[in-house]
């Protein structure tokens, strides 16, 4: 069974993240819904991708629903979701 994890909420300033492990070689796939998709969609995806790479997670599907989260929140929620999925170690 694929590892899955989620973190965050749908409240303002937050982002809800669901991560699912996928087969090696798939890469990092991000499905993003955001209230500021046009303005910041690319930047949000880049931030999510950077967190995954930093944690050595290279094959993962991420569904993200953004409600205006800042970078620090995006980073924290992605990390938490990956930790909860067991795809990266907690400190």
């Amino acid at each position, binding site marked *: 069974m694929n590892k899955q994890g989620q*973190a*965050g909420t749908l*409240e*303002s*300033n*937050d982002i809800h993240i669901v991560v699912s492990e996928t087969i090696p070689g798939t890469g990092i796939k991000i499905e993003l819904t955001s209230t500021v998709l046009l303005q910041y969609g690319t930047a949000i995806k880049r931030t999510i991708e950077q967190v995954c790479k930093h944690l050595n997670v290279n094959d993962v599907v991420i569904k993200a629903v953004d409600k205006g*989260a*800042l*970078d*620090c*929140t995006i*980073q*924290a*929620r992605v*990390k*938490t979701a990956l*930790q*909860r999925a067991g795809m990266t170690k*907690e*400190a």
Partner: protein
Amino acid sequence: MRRTLLFLPGNNPGNVQSGGVFGADGVILDLEDAVSPLEKDAARNLVAQALQTVDYHGCETVVRVNPLVAKGAKDIKVIVPCEPDALMLPKIESAADVKEQIALIKSAEKPGQKPVLVMPLLETPMGVAHALEIALSDDRVTAICLGAEDYTAGLGTARSKEGTEIFMARAVVANASAAANIDGVDTPFTDVQDEAGLIKDTMMAKNMGFKGKLSINPRQIDAIHNVYAPTGAEISWALRVLQAIEEGKNRGTGVIAVNGKMIDAPIVSRANRTIELAKLLNLLEVE
């Protein structure tokens, strides 16, 4: 300056990222009571990220970690390298409790980082009974705080707005902090709708020797700061004291008096603190 330390729930991004704009002297990013057990990991990560990126505009950044029996060691390991100014340690009951956590803090610090200070929270009858040994337990103890909600539960009594039931605890904590030359910070006033009650409660704390008050809502900050702002009479008195000290030094006089009262070191210290506060609040120009 710790007139106000504002609690903010550690898993609420809106609050965590806005901590610097409320005007408090310090913010306490809370990983303990304000976070549900299932979200402790998320809050820990959020606070860690925020400490590294959010501008708190000079506010003292404090993180209330969980007790060691509830994954507090993990909080310390993750939060300390993110360089908060201090950790608030809940449910401290002895000097040994403080030393145990300071050892963990030291082992979590990055080489060369500024030492993380600690603020033990005394919120049990045992903690209050050991206030002085806790205050003196380590140089990193920079303040001791009273948490009256849990304390009164421990006493087996009810919390009242008048605070009769915590009078002894307040006196003990304020005295211990003064004896250790650190800040004593009073328990929060929990009715955020009652500003008159907050002012009365803060005046009581100030008169008992507390240097500030924990706060649970941004709307409490101005009222607390107003109570702690020196009055015109206090500023005039402090200026006279400092002037007399200066004149005494120039004349080589040993004993100095102002208005017939002898001025000694604690008086000078109080006068200095009054002037520092007045400068901070831009009150000197108008005097």
